[in-house]
């Protein structure tokens, strides 16, 4: 009923809020992996040259 009245008034119909889940990647976000670096070229190669030995995804 309310929906129709709104349309008749030219107002935007009511839309109930939607809940969407967005997944975080905490292991990427906090730099806990040694994926990239400034020390030695490409991401993977740098990890081997670095003292950080964990290669990220």
């Amino acid at each position, binding site marked *: 009923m309310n929906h129709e009245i709104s349309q008749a008034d030219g107002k935007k119909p009511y839309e109930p809020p939607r809940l969407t889940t*967005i997944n975080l990647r905490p292991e990427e976000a*906090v*730099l806990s992996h040694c994926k*990239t670096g*400034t020390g*030695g070229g490409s991401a993977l190669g740098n990890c081997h*040259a670095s*003292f950080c030995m964990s290669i990220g995804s």
Partner: protein
Amino acid sequence: MLSCLTYQTKMISKFTSKPLEHLQEETTVLRNQVRVGGVSVQFVSVDSAAIALLPPLDQFQVEMGVPDIAIQVEWLPELPVSPARQLFDSGYTWRLYDAGSELRFDFFAPAFGRLPYKRLLINSEFSRARLQMNENSFAGMTRGPSPLEYPLDELLIMHRLTQEKAIELHGVGIVGPDGASNLFVGHSGAGKSTTARLWSSLHDVEILSDDRIIVREDRLRKDKIREDANRIFMYGTPWHGEAAFALPGRAPLQRIFVLEHGHGNVLTRLTRSEMVAELFARSFVPFHRHEYVDSALTFLERVADSVPCYRYCFEPDERAVERILNFRD
């Protein structure tokens, strides 16, 4: 090639809060300066290796000037163990502690056991710091350490961006053959490096990074001030991905695409709230203070108000590139 400049101790005193007071007046100190994402960082040390810039960070070297962050690098026989409240544990490479008026970042690696091999002490504005290297950790090693290497450099910039209208995103920034600049964000495995390789193989493009892009609001030059004088730019960074693209340039940001593997190269416009959430999930924000998270979300709202954003379910071939080149909002 190292091209640092030498200055006498007295000459650098204006750049550091505690400027190498323990050194003799005649001691020569060395400096180097880089700028990443609009943030300038100056390193000062008596050790040339401590301020050396290795590729690709050397591309980001700039002229000496008053920096946003000044760091004094020093070697200590060992890093003292002092009680401090732990604020954050990355789970592997670094931990953060409350050190009174400063923050303390300790860095770890399996090769060095349980003790930190280097430590960064920095003020709360992320403008003045001391980087302490643990001599014990490197004793007997043939390869000298690079004090600035990952993750210290990225952590520095990431924290400093909380003080500015800016954020670091997990993405590939491409300035296309028509001058259009697009940012493709995505988690690891979403296709960022693949996208960078595809575009560079098919067209004459400038790829600012294939893994980390800094997005920030900048004022245009004074002679161009208009109502839209503040614009959103994307900056390249040295922290590249598997395709190894890393450039120090910047470009006005025109569109953002959230990469997902799919079929048919389908574009779907995101709402403002969807965009903020999707970008936040692909951002590098210090999570240990809610003020930093609030600042990041506020800035992402600003980006969402200025730049259109689409979900891009793509297939990794040349049609995916042509779809974007022919796309009109």
